[in-house]
């Protein structure tokens, strides 16, 4: 009886938890806006975070972008050749990297690397009462812990996405030029003819939005951590899982929206 009633109420409880979670994220966003408006941005901390987030994430983002570009080219070239379209590989890979693969894969890698670190850092501070110590000293935790990370992520993510796209295209170029002996002029001409600023803008905008989402979700998990090391571990896992899922879902809707603003294939 209890089991059946528990199952019946499960969707309702899940939905309520979801609403509560959304409410908490909204409240954090609200505090963040207050912090932005206060004008106390702690630029030294922002710079430190840019080094940690932006500079520190370059290797993962570059490797991910490069190998995705390479393997995408490798697979699509073989298929396109069947139809005699192999010269269009550069254009297809370029648009796909700019609009989808670059920002999404960079976002997922940053969610794994930076999101986890944010949740773990802030979570550890929370369970060791360092966050309370900040409050006691009259420093709002959002001002000190979240805002610098948020600003650093907003600045770093578009650059990381750009790097991911650039190295993906470079790897794609190497695969077609040296792996398939395609004349580099064909590759470059098609790629440059069919890739425009709108495609690049979509990648940058997505990177910017993903950066904000990853920071918001990860910092929220850190600030909500309870129950010592177990709670920090749980928060860190949740930060990566939720950030990654939200990123993929938001990407879908963002793609639809941005395709209205910057329609594909108008060149």
């Amino acid at each position, binding site marked *: 009886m209890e089991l059946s009633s528990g199952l019946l109420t499960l969707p309702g409880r899940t939905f309520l938890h979801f609403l509560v979670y959304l409410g908490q994220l909204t409240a954090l966003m609200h505090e963040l806006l*207050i912090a932005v408006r206060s004008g106390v941005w702690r630029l030294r901390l922002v710079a430190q975070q840019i080094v940690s987030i932006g500079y520190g994430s370059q290797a993962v983002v570059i490797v991910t972008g490069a190998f995705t570009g390479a393997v995408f080219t490798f697979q699509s070239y073989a298929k396109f050749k069947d139809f005699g379209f192999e010269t269009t590989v550069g254009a297809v890979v370029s648009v796909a990297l700019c609009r989808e693969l670059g920002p999404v894969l960079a976002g997922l890698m940053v969610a794994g690397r930076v999101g986890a670190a944010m949740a773990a850092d802030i979570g550890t*501070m929370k369970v*060791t*009462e*360092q966050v*309370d*110590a900040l*409050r*006691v*000293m*009259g*420093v*709002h935790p959002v001002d000190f812990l979240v805002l610098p990370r948020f600003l650093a992520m907003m600045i770093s993510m578009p650059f990381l996405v750009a790097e991911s796209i650039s190295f993906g295209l470079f790897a794609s170029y190497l695969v077609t030029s040296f792996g398939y002996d395609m004349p580099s002029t064909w590759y470059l001409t098609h790629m440059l003819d069919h890739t425009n600023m709108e495609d690049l803008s979509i990648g940058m905008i997505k990177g910017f939005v993903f950066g904000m989402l990853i920071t918001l979700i990860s910092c929220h998990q850190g600030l909500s951590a309870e129950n010592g090391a177990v709670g920090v571990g749980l928060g860190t896992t949740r930060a990566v899982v939720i950030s990654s899922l939200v990123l993929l879902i938001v990407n879908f809707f963002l793609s639809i929206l941005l395709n209205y603003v910057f329609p594909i294939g108008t060149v």
Partner: protein
Amino acid sequence: MAEPTPSTTPASGNGSTNVFIELRDVYKRFGSQEVLRGINLTLQHGETLCLIGPSGEGKTVMMKHIIGLIKPERGEVYVDGVHVNRLKEREMAPIRKKVSMLFQGAALFDNLTVEQNVAFPLLEHGVRDRAEIDRRVRAALKDVDLDEHRNKYPTALSGGMRKRTGIARAIIDHSECILYDEPNSGLDPIGSDVIDQMILRMQRRYNITSIIVTHDMRSVFKIANRVAMLYRGEIRFLGTPTELRECTDQIVQDFINGRSDITG
């Protein structure tokens, strides 16, 4: 509905103007557990109150109400005449300049040295003069005998040194009141005595109002002006250390003499 304006009602309910902290009928529960059940307490400027009682009876929770880290379900908390639980987090800054807290684990920032930890409140409160910061940090570290360890990171410090760093951080911005959460826990008798002497020194030198959560009865009799015992969410005893010794309440006697009957 409009947010109530922070009250500046005089804290004193007993006609005295020297009251610094007042809790009126404070209730707090976490889930189904009622932690505080109608706490009433006043503390005068410069007074040292030791808060004793069995573990898990809400001593730290009560202290965190004073500094606004926890809001009560019911009741009022006043600090220097300001109704604290009506203030929003961002409105708490002036109160938190007057009242600071030493956490049980000291809550030092791991990525900062002792010196940087102690200077942190000054920098956050807008002091920019490097010479002034350096002078005050040196003075605070000298007060707690940590001048030689200023460049160490918290991980390189012993438990007692961490607590002394926490005290230095608490006093550096000239707080009027310090809340100590188990300052002696985990320390050897000598380390514990060092902390006690330090609390006494702060009290005498700066006339700091203090609330000390402790289980160390030797400390209680050494440093307290008054003692409050919290038991099952209520104040079971409130009086001077002498009155505590002479108290006939069996539960109080069991606690101060370390008899286990109290848990039954």
